[in-house]
């Protein structure tokens, strides 16, 4: 079955696993057991969905992008994750993990963040649950996402700039893992994407499954019980795509992930092991991990979630790349034609839809994973 539970050793096909220092293996096992129990407990699942509804604002609507559809000669549906509390899909995962952490008796959350969206979401969930929160963020990202840094601080979180390595998301993950080893007893590592050691890729996808499940129903209502021809989302680590794809994996819909050209792990990477997982990875011939280069801090990651590697290898999903320039155009286009300012991450998926002639005449569901408020400063500098 496509997008089912991974094997007992945490594999999706040949990818995944639990490549962490021995010190963290027990914590991963504990987390897996706790998640398994919670996720099959109707009380936990009901509480998760209650919080997403009453606090997060779910369900998020599907919007017909009428103007842009006409312009592009296709039917474009937008899954509006940008309308969630905190402005992106990230809230689904952090609510799930914060509830789980509390159930496990943990009192603190630690997280990494790239664009700051996951950091803001984690800080939000921590505030809501009365937990302490520490967020590791690459120093480069601290610089280009100052607004989100301040947001996290407003929410009571401590933001720790990471000065090692490329000073972006991958280094923030390293630093969060280093911290977690030392505090694992009372701290839950709230990983922000479908990556890392088992059970994270599976657990995070399950917490985001709500995106795909809702969209499947919403599309059925709009399409006479049918599914879109194409279902697409941007892919960095791949969490919003995994959530959306999981609702359509058993359908005839074509699944397309869109990577930044400068961080295209699926398209340009080869199998490798970093951050606890075996997956596609941008690396040199010796196995040193390369620095990703993207306009979008949230996609600036040289790896990808192992389930995406598996979906690509088996052909169930395909992966495209777009350039920064195409993303900038798409960002402006959606703003002008639909009155929706997208996150730069989400604008990647849109950039592919705008570019690919093959899509004309088709129905396309696109995950608008986040809103662009956080990117407005950066875009002001670029467009002026």
């Amino acid at each position, binding site marked *: 079955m496509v997008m089912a539970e991974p094997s007992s050793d945490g594999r999706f096909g040949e990818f995944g696993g639990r490549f962490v220092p021995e010190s963290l293996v027990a914590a991963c096992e504990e987390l897996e057991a706790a998640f398994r129990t919670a996720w099959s407990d109707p009380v936990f699942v009901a509480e998760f969905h209650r919080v997403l509804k009453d606090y997060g604002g779910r369900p998020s609507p599907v919007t017909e992008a009428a103007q842009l559809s006409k312009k592009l000669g296709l039917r474009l549906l937008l899954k509006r994750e940008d309308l969630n509390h905190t402005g992106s899909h990230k809230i689904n995962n952090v609510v799930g993990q914060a509830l789980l952490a509390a159930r496990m008796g943990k009192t603190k959350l630690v997280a990494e963040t790239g664009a700051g969206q996951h950091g803001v979401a984690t800080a939000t969930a921590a505030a809501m649950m009365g937990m302490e929160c520490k967020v590791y963020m690459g120093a480069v990202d601290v610089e280009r996402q100052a607004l989100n840094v301040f947001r996290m601080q407003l929410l009571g979180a401590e933001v720790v700039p990471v000065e090692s390595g490329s000073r972006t998301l991958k280094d923030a993950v390293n630093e969060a893992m280093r911290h977690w080893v030392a505090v694992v007893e009372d701290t839950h590592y709230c990983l922000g994407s479908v990556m890392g050691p088992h059970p994270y890729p599976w657990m995070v996808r399950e917490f985001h499954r709500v995106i795909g499940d809702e969209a499947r129903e919403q599309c059925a209502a709009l399409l006479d019980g049918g599914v879109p021809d194409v279902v697409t989302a941007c892919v960095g680590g791949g969490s919003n795509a995994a959530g959306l794809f999981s609702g359509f994996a058993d359908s005839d819909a074509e699944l397309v992930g869109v990577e930044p050209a400068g961080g295209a792990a699926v398209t340009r990477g080869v199998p490798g*092991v970093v951050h606890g997982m075996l997956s596609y990875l941008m690396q040199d011939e010796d196995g040193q991990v390369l620095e990703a280069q993207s306009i979008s801090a949230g996609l600036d990651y040289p790896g990808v979630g192992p389930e995406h590697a598996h979906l690509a290898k088996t052909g169930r999903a395909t992966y495209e790349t777009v350039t920064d320039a195409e993303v900038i155009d798409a960002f402006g286009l959606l703003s002008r034609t639909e009155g929706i300012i997208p996150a730069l991450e989400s604008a990647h998926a849109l950039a592919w839809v705008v570019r690919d002639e093959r899509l004309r005449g088709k129905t396309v569901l696109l995950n608008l994973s986040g809103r662009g408020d956080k990117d407005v400063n950066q875009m002001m500098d670029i467009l002026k």
Partner: protein
Amino acid sequence: MSRSLEAALRTKRAAGQKLLVPYLTGGFDGWADCVRAAVANGADAIEIGVPFSDPVMDGPVIQEASWKALDRGATPQSVLDEAADLDVEVPLAVMTYYNLAFRAGHQRFAAGLIRAGITGCILPDLPYIESAPWRLAAVAEGVEPVQLAAPTTPDHRLTELCAASRGFVYSVGLMGVTGGRAALAESAKVTAARCMAVTDTPVLVGVGISTPDRAAEVVQASDGVVVGTSMVAKMMAEGPEGVGELVAEYRAAIDTSSVN
């Protein structure tokens, strides 16, 4: 020529000696002379760090040395080539991260170590539960795959991984990354004692052993110590002479301790 790490350590242990294994970052400017100085001052084996872009088990000091080595162009092959020319009388091990072995291919990576005269290999982000394919390939080439035991390792896995470990058992001193701490963690002696109870393979404690006094304390419950961060800090600040002096201090501390 490769000298078996485990055989050498067992021989010294049988002679009543506590074991001292300094860690030095390969590829750092002047590292080979630091290794020679460490050996001349009583190291029983040397652990050579092969720099990796994402050293998730390492604290700030070893990270810095790794970055400096990578910045001056160190690659896995250049470090192995320099190791092959060390010409020291003690066995050598590498400590690096799994992706370098995975990318090269297990067999090719292991064969490269043997060619460089290195027999031990420590991969801290490859836990025992994921290690079977690597161990199989390593042993076939004559490489001794050292396994790490942590304070949180449950008893059943501790027994299994100690049995599977070759060279020595690396008993992780505390829950955290490499680097000095204010005091020796209680977990260092507890974890070492748990390993010693289930294996005859030499048990060395590493991570958090930052002074000769702490090394002397921890060898009461183990066969020896791996000393990383303080050696690397010395290498960066003072070079071979400083490293030699520091090794001599550790040597004296654990020798005195084992006589008591």
